[in-house]
């Protein structure tokens, strides 16, 4: 056995605590300042915000209204336009199903993109089975769609266009303002929905500038609690959608159900913090991401960033390490929380559909790792991760027949493989 095949052991620098969380696109830690704001609403102000005849209800309602204002402010909208939901999956479902149901007399065509989140794609697939026609736009190799592409796909039957601001896997940020303008110029009556979850509080996004009608957001991607999200629904001009949950007529009839006041208060606080700190945080997080990128690419050859590096969330790095299968690398990075586009990390044995849509070959898709840097990561953590990643990739390459063949100058495409 060669020394290179031995497990990697790197001393943990002082100030770094394992495990390190670098999976901030999947969720985030709740900011302690958010938790602090929430606590009184569990034990003291536990009223039902819909109770109109006592102080418990009034206190809860006032807190909810305050939070609505905080959430709306970060979107550039009005508090009255916030429909609170259980999270962005519900918000996307409500936006798309609700709009399709309300507008079915106007048309049956919906446009979306192949790289959208599953809560958009699977909702569209369901509508397709119910008779709607869906166009799935294919992004360019850098992950971006163009306004021209969207307009070209629009017909007189188009009732809804759904395009995310920022992608959850590759972090690519779409030219959402240009797309919104183009959609509205082609047909002002077609609704424009955006899944803004990953962008919310991370990059500037304004519902007016983007001319959107519906925008889905959630708290837990922004250092708020899990289980609370919102759909922003334009009031001027008024956008109407059918509810998917019926009941007491809460949220202007669009989403019934008792409001989880502590979660909403936390959501509001998280949005308010982002409003104050986004500019500074973006600089800090981007510097960490760039440090990670430079550190990895200066140590290793044959690495490929997936998606545009320029139009990208500050904290995202999605990178393929050629000739090293993603899950085996995750195993080496067992004290680092990241995710992979490798098939082996999913039950389906298919590599990431997002990378496939970009035209990234399956062989490279299997080697991709998504790093998501967030508010609580430090430079010392990033430096430790660079060292661990570089040495783990080197070790796994020394185990990889593909790396050896590549080093020997063998073209891997010239080999008759046996797919299984």
């Amino acid at each position, binding site marked *: 056995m*060669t020394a290179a095949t031995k497990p990697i052991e790197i001393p943990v620098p002082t100030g770094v605590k394992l495990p390190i969380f670098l999976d901030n696109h999947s969720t985030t830690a709740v900011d302690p300042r958010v938790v602090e704001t929430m606590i009184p609403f569990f034990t003291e102000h536990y009223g039902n915000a819909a109770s109109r005849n006592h102080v418990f209800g009034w206190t809860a309602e006032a807190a909810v209204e305050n939070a609505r204002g905080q959430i709306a402010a970060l979107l550039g909208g009005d508090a009255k336009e916030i429909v609170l939901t259980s999270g962005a999956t519900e918000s996307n479902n409500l936006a798309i199903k609700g709009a399709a149901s309300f507008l079915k007399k106007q048309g049956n065509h919906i446009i979306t993109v192949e790289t959208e989140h599953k809560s958009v794609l699977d909702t569209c697939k369901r509508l397709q089975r119910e008779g709607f026609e869906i166009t799935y736009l294919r992004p360019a190799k850098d992950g971006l769609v163009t306004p021209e592409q969207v307009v070209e796909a629009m017909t007189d039957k188009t009732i809804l266009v759904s395009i995310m601001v920022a992608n959850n896997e590759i972090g690519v940020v779409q030219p959402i303002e240009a797309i919104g303008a183009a959609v509205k110029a082609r047909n002002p009556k077609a609704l424009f929905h955006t899944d803004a979850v990953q962008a919310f509080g991370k990059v500037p996004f304004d519902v007016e500038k983007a001319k959107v009608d519906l925008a889905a957001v959630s708290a837990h991607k922004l250092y708020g609690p899990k289980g609370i999200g919102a759909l922003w629904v334009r009031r001027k001009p008024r956008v109407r959608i059918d509810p998917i949950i019926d009941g007491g007529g809460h949220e202007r009839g669009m989403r019934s159900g008792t409001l989880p006041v502590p979660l909403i208060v936390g959501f509001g606080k998280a949005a308010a913090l982002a409003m104050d700190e986004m500019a500074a945080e973006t600089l800090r997080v981007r510097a960490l991401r760039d440090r990670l990128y430079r550190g990895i690419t200066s140590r290793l050859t044959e690495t490929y960033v997936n998606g545009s590096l320029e139009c990208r969330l500050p904290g995202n790095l999605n990178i393929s390490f050629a000739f090293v299968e993603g899950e085996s690398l995750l195993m080496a990075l067992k004290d680092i929380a990241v995710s992979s586009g490798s098939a082996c990390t999913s039950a389906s044995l298919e590599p990431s559909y997002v990378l496939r849509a970009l035209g990234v070959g399956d*062989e490279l898709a299997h080697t991709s790792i998504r790093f998501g840097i967030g508010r609580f990561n430090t430079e010392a953590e990033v430096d430790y991760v660079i060292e661990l990643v570089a040495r783990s990739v080197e070790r796994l390459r020394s185990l990889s027949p593909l790396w050896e063949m590549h080093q020997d100058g063998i073209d891997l495409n010239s080999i008759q493989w046996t797919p299984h």
Partner: protein
Amino acid sequence: MAYSDKVIDHYENPRNVGTFKTETDIDAGEVGTGLVGAPACGDVMRLEIRVVDGTIADARFKTFGCGSAIASSSLATEMIKGMTLDQAAQIKNTQIVEELNLPPVKIHCSVLAEDAIKAAIEDYKKKRSK
């Protein structure tokens, strides 16, 4: 998903990694190579056997694949050492599944290891018959 201790052990301390090609004292005619899988599927195994007097005297592997694939091929090299070609050809993937405690979603890794053994034996026999 948690890995079994045996998978982790083979992943962290893989046995018989390498290639006979770089070992100058070995007669290429004694070596059979099995290369199975595909990069697009996320796993490729290369298993080499060195056959002396009808017995597998030694084995080498390199694998591109998940931890279970690396462990399956590492284990396979250990299993076949000292076996005759006929004995090695009889190895079933289920033995690897059992030994490594592989979950259902990882069974294909053991199948690939079985295929690699068979392909290496076939390659050796083909060379010999020339």
